[in-house]
């Protein structure tokens, strides 16, 4: 019997959590993450400016103006401007946000409000110029992320759920734990949980690539080069609808992502995405 074990037996182990910094995010992940934040912010704000030029969505190749599945606009009711939004036959009063909102105190008919569009006033030409500039930045950045993620094994090692994580009971357990805002500690915190992995993979491999492809499908010139894009998405107006839906899903992801960042340790999470170091608590025997 070695001395260390003997000591441990002699005085009962007291588990004392100790913070250790582990290397969580590679430089490539950190850089591409922040470039992504920048480009997606500009793409969203300029995209809403572009949406406002014709705030209605359709399915198929062409617009059926009398029958959009989503439309927003303003009208005068009882002497004041009201915003109305229709989604799949359901009508909503969205005054102040969609359809009609105030710009410098003056009520205007517009899709999304001024504080969500770039530029804030109605200016499609400038909105488009921003959108295409940041689209290039976004695509080049995304290509670097995916290439480095495949080459370094980051996607397979860190993002692909392991067999034990895919066990339905484990997935349910994670959902319950998340609902109670209890997050992994200790050794388990070294890896992403299965819900995180699913969300990150869904965004990186499904939503963001769909944004690029549906965006390309809206280009008459690229449709000539890649007619299969129209077949894939069911026409240009369908592509515009899917582009809008995916943008909303990305916004929903960002909201949940930011909430999780705050709830599971704001400073630790932000530090890990800047310096790469993430603190986890490991239990070790008292000396």
């Amino acid at each position, binding site marked *: 019997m070695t001395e260390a074990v003997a000591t441990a037996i002699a005085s009962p182990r007291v588990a004392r959590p100790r913070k250790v910094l582990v290397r969580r995010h590679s430089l490539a992940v950190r850089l591409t993450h922040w470039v992504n934040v920048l480009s997606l912010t500009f793409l969203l704000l300029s995209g809403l400016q572009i949406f406002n030029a014709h705030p209605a969505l359709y399915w198929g190749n062409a617009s059926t103006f009398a029958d959009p599945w989503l439309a927003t606009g303003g009208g005068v009711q009882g002497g004041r401007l009201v915003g109305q939004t229709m989604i799949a036959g359901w009508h909503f009063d969205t005054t102040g946000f969609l359809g009609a909102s105030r710009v410098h105190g003056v009520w205007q008919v517009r899709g999304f409000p*001024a504080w969500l569009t770039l530029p804030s006033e109605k200016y499609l030409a400038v909105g*488009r110029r921003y959108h295409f500039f940041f689209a290039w930045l976004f695509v080049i950045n995304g290509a670097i992320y995916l290439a480095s993620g495949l080459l370094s094994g980051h996607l397979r090692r860190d993002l692909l759920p392991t067999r034990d994580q895919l066990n339905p009971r484990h997935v349910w357990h994670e959902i319950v734990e998340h609902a109670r805002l209890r997050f992994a500690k200790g050794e388990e915190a070294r890896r992403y949980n299965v819900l995180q992995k699913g969300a990150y993979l869904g965004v990186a491999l499904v939503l963001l690539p769909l944004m690029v492809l549906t965006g390309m499908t809206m280009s*008459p010139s*690229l449709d*000539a080069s890649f007619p299969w894009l129209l077949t894939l998405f069911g026409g240009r107006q369908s592509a515009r609808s899917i582009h809008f839906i995916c943008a909303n899903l990305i916004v929903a992801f960002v909201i949940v992502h930011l909430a999780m960042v705050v709830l599971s340790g704001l400073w630790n999470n932000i530090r890990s995405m800047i310096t790469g170091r993430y603190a986890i608590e490991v239990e070790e025997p008292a000396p």
Partner: protein
Amino acid sequence: MITLPSSRRGWLKAAGASVLGMVLAGCDRIAENPKVLGVIDAAEGLNRRAQRLLASRRTLAPEFSRASISRDFRANGTTNPADDDYRALAEDGFAGWRLVVDGLVDHPLSLSLDQVRALPARTQVTRHDCVEGWSGIAEWKGARMTALLAAAGLKPTARYIVLHCADTFDAGAPEGQRKYYESLDLVDALHPQTILAYEMNGETLAIPHGAPLRLRAEKHLGYKQAKYVMRVEAVDSLDHIGAGKGGFWPDRGYERYAGI
């Protein structure tokens, strides 16, 4: 004296609104700064080059079946020119209308509508994509631009084809920049689907859609599809046409290469 909102909530709302207003104004000042826009504009050249790289000179825009023709094809921009010259031509059923082809050509032309109709033609059912986001499908029949330019004989120095239109679109603009115009470089002008259309969905082109003659350049957005075309001019530079950016909307901030 400035009246202050009485309630605390009102004050907070006013403060919030003015902070938001300042942030928006600041963002706009940066976003619309010419130097910033100069950097942002790098994307336009990148778009044009990428789209050219991905297509051969003869890659066709998708064509559709007649069954998919839109019943509600929207007429946008000018829908009924108020210009006296045009009104006179329209009242006469365009009998006195002439298409002038000039500039850097060997044989300047002045063609009647019947003469334009006698040129080799092409019929195509294509999708029209407005820069605003909507689309419509229509069948177009018109004279091939290649045939028209061959008849006039392009000089080797010609690099762009400018389409001058009858309609005044911005009466408040400086002289020479009031009427609609568009331009094509030679790759697009000589594309097989580039036609000067005089028929839409099997009928004579109507005034809202550009009678008697409009451009169809199918790999481009709607604002490229000049209506009420009066003159086709071959030039070596766009610098002295309109404000020099190659089109009525390009002069106002939109891309000349309207491929996306």
